[in-house]
């Protein structure tokens, strides 16, 4: 046995674990594969799991090893990811990947699509991902950063890669939050071939970090023949990040939104994060202003008390009033509250519709000036009304 080969494990099992599995692998010099399986779903999928495990080991070039699997009802794409992680940790893997069957990807995501809500999904917790799309957020975020323990970064990366390939999130935009650079660059190599729609870059402080990510994505897109946009959303989480908001927003044309991470931002300021958020008012308004200047969306942080729907509603309504177009969520129950808060009111929609029909009327008559009753309507007002009506339509409100 060579020195870099060692026993290794990956994944989780136990009474309270769902939809995951634990894989333990002991490299051997001869004797082929000895495969052991205990599974909560043994009578139904035991044979299927054994067949899949053999196939994955063969793909990864594992010839001799003892492999013990303790399965808690994991789906096939999770099984593949956990075995691959264990094999890599054991130093047994060749250069192949054990990729699950790829489902049809959703339509490419538009640069200015609705981004009212984005649901965070921890990158190492398979049980939250499979039904996340059903709850109807505008986006899901597969998180490789703060929700993942440093020792599990490799496992999360492989699982997120497989999730992007195998799980349908319906009409949701598929986002991935990579790690802070330089670790985030390793994340890109694994996930960009699966074409997420948006990459969130944490703790950005200067535009160079954004261009570094953008360049690497461009390179990987060419190498893996990906012909759909992969947008960027820098997260500003420090005083320095907020001060550089404008150049960061304009760093590349692939930036679609700026967002703020309030936990880290308030920690950087040395202030206490409060429910009213007065301490971050300046940073948040400055971010909105910089985003508007660059023509990108401003997206707010998350509201972390999942039991307080009234507090969430107030926060989200205040955020919309500041100019934010959406925020993050950490529980599906927050989604409808956020969507309602970021929806334009009936009166706003009605007024915009009147302006739009006046505009259409003027165009038909070949008149340059749009007027409503005795009032002349300025072109930016018309533009805003057109945008609001389009938004309202996509939310099913007009």
């Amino acid at each position: 046995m060579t020195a870099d080969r060692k026993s290794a494990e990956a994944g989780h099992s136990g009474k309270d674990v769902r939809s995951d599995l634990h894989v333990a692998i002991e490299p051997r010099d001869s004797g082929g594969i000895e495969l052991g399986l205990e599974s909560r779903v043994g009578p139904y999928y035991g044979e299927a799991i054994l067949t899949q495990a053999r196939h994955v080991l063969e793909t990864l070039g594992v010839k001799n090893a003892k492999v013990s699997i303790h399965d808690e009802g994991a789906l096939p794409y999770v099984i593949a990811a956990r075995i691959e992680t264990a094999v890599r940790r054991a130093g047994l893997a060749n250069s192949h990947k054990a990729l699950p069957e790829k489902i049809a990807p959703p339509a490419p995501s538009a640069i200015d699509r609705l981004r009212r809500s984005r649901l965070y999904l921890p990158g190492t917790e398979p049980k939250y991902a499979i039904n996340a799309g059903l709850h109807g957020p505008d986006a899901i975020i597969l998180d490789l950063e703060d929700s993942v323990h440093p020792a599990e970064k490799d496992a999360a990366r492989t699982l997120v890669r497989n999730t992007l390939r195998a799980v349908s999130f319906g009409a949701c935009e598929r986002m991935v939050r990579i790690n802070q650079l330089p670790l985030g660059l390793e994340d890109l190599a694994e996930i960009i071939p699966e074409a997420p729609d948006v990459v969130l870059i944490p703790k950005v402080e200067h535009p160079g970090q954004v261009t570094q990510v953008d360049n690497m994505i461009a390179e990987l897109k060419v190498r893996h023949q990906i012909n759909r946009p992969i947008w960027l959303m820098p997260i500003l989480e420090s005083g320095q990040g907020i001060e550089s908001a404008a150049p960061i927003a304009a760093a590349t044309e692939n930036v679609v939104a700026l967002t703020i991470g309030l936990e880290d931002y308030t920690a950087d300021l040395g202030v206490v994060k409060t429910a009213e958020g007065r301490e971050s008012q300046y940073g948040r308004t400055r971010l909105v202003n910089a985003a508007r200047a660059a023509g990108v969306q401003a997206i707010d942080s998350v509201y972390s008390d999942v039991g307080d729907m009234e507090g969430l509603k107030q926060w989200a309504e205040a955020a919309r009033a500041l100019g934010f177009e959406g925020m993050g969520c950490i529980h599906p129950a927050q989604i409808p509250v956020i969507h309602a808060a970021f929806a334009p009111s009936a009166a706003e929609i009605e007024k915009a519709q009147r302006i739009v029909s006046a505009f259409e009327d003027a165009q038909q008559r070949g008149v340059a000036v749009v007027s409503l009753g005795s009032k002349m309507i300025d072109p930016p007002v018309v533009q805003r009304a057109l945008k609001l009506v389009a938004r309202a339509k996509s939310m099913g409100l007009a």
Partner: protein
Amino acid sequence: MTERVELAHNAAQRRVPTMVNGKPQIPYLGVGKYQPRGRKQAPPVRSSKDYPENGDKRLPDLETALRKCGLRDGMVISNHHHLRDGDRVALMMLEAAAKMGVKDLLWFPSASFPSQKDAIGLMEKGVIHHIEGSMNGPLGDYCTQGKMRGMGVLRSHGGRWQAIQDGEVHIDIAVIAAPTADAFGNADGSHGKSACGSLGFALADSTYADHVIVVTDNLVPFPCVPWQIQGNNVDYVVEVDCIGDPAKIVSGTTQITRSPDRLRIAEFVARFLRDAGIMKNGFSFQAGAGGIALAFVDYLRRMMKEDGVKARFVRGGSTKYLVDLLREGLTDYILDGQTFDLDGVKSIANDLRHVATSPFTSYNYHSKGNFASMVDAVVLGATEVDVHFNANVVTHSDGRLLHGIGGWQNCLFSGCSILGLPSFRDRIPVIVDEVTTLTGPGEMIDVVVTERGIAINPLRKDLLDAVKGSKLPIRPIQDIKTEVEQICGGRPARPKLGDRPVAVVKWVDGTVLDTVWQVG
């Protein structure tokens, strides 16, 4: 069991035994096809001259009471399960019988619970011959592994009343745990340190058994009011320190699930009732105490308030959530079969609009109608459902006994029977080609609600029409099944079941609907 079991195909094309525990059986004939004849059973006539004029029927202990009731080998002895997993009286009774050296008893509880697993030892010793009543946990495994000497018989709450009333099961001695009682034997479940609410499951036992013993840990001077059990049916009263563990009898406040998938199912169910026009003034519904059912009540409550709709009555298993409806004036009555939490117990004790019911009024099919068919909609669970809407509630899909039938079968007679289920659990699809154990015929099940969409039984064209144009995700059941099988990596293998029957599932009319086969 050494005898060879003859099997016949019933009207649901399931193989069922023609003899169970030495008694000939009628295979299921179809819904409403079996016509019962004859007269109801009755206990022996008694005379007041044989009972104390001062009404004091107390005896020092349960063993003495059992002896005076003439307990002997092979008798049928019964208990109710209102104290649920906290019950101490059933084991007290069985252990007293063991001490007396009695053998081969048929234990006939309205349901058994995991805390009564010591009954296994008493079966090994020959004290108990077999159990007829729901079995789960260790007792369920003992039965499905084929270790019980007789066959298990699973009945619905209504079916248990029917079996007693029709003489299929003759109870020799009923031992009734009573949270409050007087020395005459009047008993009530809604007061006392071991309060459990209704005592409805014990009513048939008290009416039809040859002998009735009331066991209480809260003896009050005559009269015990209200008397859910009438002392006129009672032979003896035994006072003990403790009939049960209050913490396991009722839960504190039942918590609504936080699972987003389950909440989604619950919301779909509530929206279905609203959009199909079932939720209207004067309507009625029943919901159990499962996670989805509780959450459903909360969603429906909000919709009823929004639309200004009030129910005439709701049926429980009562919990805080039904009690809230009553307090907020959203229903005129709660008709309560069993009481699950402290709010329910307090309410039934203090509010005349919260009424205890029995399986006779609620569920018994062999009677002049019952409440179940008058309920507009019921929300139930299941372990499996097939593409023809046949459902299983008693076994896990590997064939092991998992739940009793409870009121589940009886509730299927409501105007709209809804199953709220996750589309898969731990990778195991819930919608299958064929259910492991048929518990409810598909023609009785109208709607299956999953987190991936709502399937309406094609037999219910009226419901399909009623929700046309709504925003509900209505899909063919086959569609949901196909999607879930793709997610789960193909159809599951079918576990191998043995060919020896270990229990039967009765339909509400006493005919045999399906067989539980030996596993492992």
